[in-house]
């Protein structure tokens, strides 16, 4: 019996950039260091960790586009490289619509996202998760006009993405200018033919929404997920709106592996079953000090707590 859900993993947790496609020699890095750094420097190993955990899909950040161009030549070459290591699909990418709240910046925002649409399609990806506007610090709160500007821009991105077979999804960051007080209005202002919602369970929870209720209410718009946990539900505005909010000054974590926080994932899974959700489920556990441990723990949680409910 084929399963309804398959798992993809966003690759941003391994570091700011994975520098090497593949290391040629172990000892060059191990000798004199005698540490574990050598295990984390190249895509070859990192992709194998995913497959070893039973994760056969990956998502890529926007900065992988120039990286792949320089190191692999084409998106297809990187997809082949990943496939050779057991990755079935590069399911999607993450992009930005920074500046969309300013209509004068729409040409540059659209140009950047057109590049990402082409990149995602060439990788064989099915969706783009997009931060819908600038960060809140220095920009928010958005005026009604700014919110409309951002929505109009997103609608155009969505229309273009649909033309290439890619689903454009709003991905709300807890530190984005589109935030707690206007996210639902923003969603209503976007065209459901072209714009979907990627429910990042921790991001919306930190903002003050209940992700389970959110899915129940918007399940027809929520086509994709970024699954991650948090213990900082409904964080205060000043914690979310300050400079570099995502990187807490004291190093404390916003995000945890599945089961490491307080999000009701079993509740969410019951709704996935209720609404007969099918497709790739993406896990995104950025902010971890140990990406390998976090991936294994998350997969254990999926296999032993969630899959018995619905898979």
């Amino acid at each position, binding site marked *: 019996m084929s399963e309804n859900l398959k798992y993809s993993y966003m690759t941003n947790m*391994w*570091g*700011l950039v994975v520098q*090497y496609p593949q290391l040629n020699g172990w000892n060059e890095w191990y000798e*004199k260091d005698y540490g574990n750094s050598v295990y984390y420097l190249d895509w070859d190993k990192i992709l194998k960790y995913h497959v070893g955990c039973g994760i056969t899909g990956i998502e890529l950040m926007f900065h992988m586009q120039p990286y792949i161009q320089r190191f692999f030549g084409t998106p297809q070459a990187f997809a082949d490289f990943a496939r050779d290591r057991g990755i079935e699909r590069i399911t999607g990418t993450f992009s930005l619509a920074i500046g969309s709240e300013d209509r004068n910046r729409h040409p540059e925002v659209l*140009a950047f996202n057109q590049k990402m649409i082409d990149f995602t399609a060439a990788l064989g990806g099915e969706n783009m998760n997009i931060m819908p506007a600038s960060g809140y610090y220095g920009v928010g709160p958005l005026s009604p006009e700014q919110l409309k500007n951002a929505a109009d821009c997103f609608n155009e991105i969505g229309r273009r993405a649909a033309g290439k077979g890619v689903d454009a999804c709003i991905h709300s960051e807890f530190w984005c200018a589109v935030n707690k007080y206007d996210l639902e209005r923003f969603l209503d202002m976007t065209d459901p033919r072209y714009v979907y919602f990627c429910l990042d369970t921790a991001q919306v929870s930190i903002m003050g929404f209940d992700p389970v209720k959110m899915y129940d209410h918007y399940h027809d718009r929520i086509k994709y997920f970024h699954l991650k946990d948090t213990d900082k539900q409904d964080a205060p505005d000043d914690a979310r709106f300050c400079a570099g909010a995502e*990187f807490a000054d004291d190093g404390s974590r916003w995000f945890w592996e599945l089961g490491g926080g307080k999000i009701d994932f079993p509740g969410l899974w019951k709704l996935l079953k209720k609404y007969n959700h099918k497709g790739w489920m993406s896990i995104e556990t950025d902010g971890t*000090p140990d990406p390998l441990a976090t991936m294994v723990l998350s997969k254990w949680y999926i296999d032993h707590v969630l899959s018995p409910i619905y898979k």
Partner: protein
Amino acid sequence: MKFGCSLEMINMRTSGPNFIIRQSKGYWMEMFKLVAAAGFKGIELPYNPYSSDPIAFEVGRCGMPISRAAVHAKYESPQAFMAMLRDFGIEEVTGVHVNPNDILLELLARDGQMSEYFPMLQALADEALDFLSALGAKTLVLSISPEIGLLAENFGGGKDGWQPDFVARTIEAVNQIAARAETKGLSLALKNEFWGMGHGEHLQEIFAGLVPQVLYSPDVAHLSIGGQDPVKTVEIFASRLAQVRLNDTSFADTEQNFRKINAEIPVTGSQRVFCDLGEGHVDAKGLCQSLQKAGYDGWIICESRNTLNVHRALLKLRWLIDHELTQA
């Protein structure tokens, strides 16, 4: 001679466990204390204000003091930042380092025109000079050029012949920046990389066209990879040295990586371009003796570029300085 530490020792463009903490202000505040504990009274800062280059976007939001905007956002002001450093035991910022490769990456990220490169270089230098003044620091360290590989692709369209014009325009720009630095009471030092236009014998050709107030910040590992003798090179430029940079390498560029894009990340052959100071084949002690003989009294900036363990590298640097580099 006085020994300082470059914050570029902390490689932000990498992956691995415990990377994420480098993006918090707390990490950097602790790091400043550790640098002071390792006996360094001066630090050099990298300077990159861009945000379309995807990596710069991420770095600009964290606690790394990589630009005027980053310092204002996370440390209130350059003045407050300096007060904090002095509280922690660091007496001065020795300089800021601008890498023109970041300009090219920014242009490529936003599909800009290459005609914008030199105006952006001037603007970036001016911003960095203002930042230096605000910090009470004295020296702008400017890498000579972006990667030859990136230049060949974007200025040359893959063909030869673009080099003389690019070098001439670089010399003109550097001379202009040096003049502006001088009006502000600041210095400009040009830094070499094995992958830049100062590769090999071209370094002296470039300096022949520069005004005398442009100083030279030699990176000894880059010189070594480029096939130049670091001690001899430093002796040639003895009268115009500043921010002498100690890095180390065991790397031999047998694959001509100096011509390639991402030259510091080889894909074939040997890939580890830099190693911790004292573990490669650079004669750091010989260099320091040569500097002492020449009466050099400026900063020696220690970097141990791309070290896999920053904390060990800091302590190893201190041991080297105390037990080898300053010993007869």
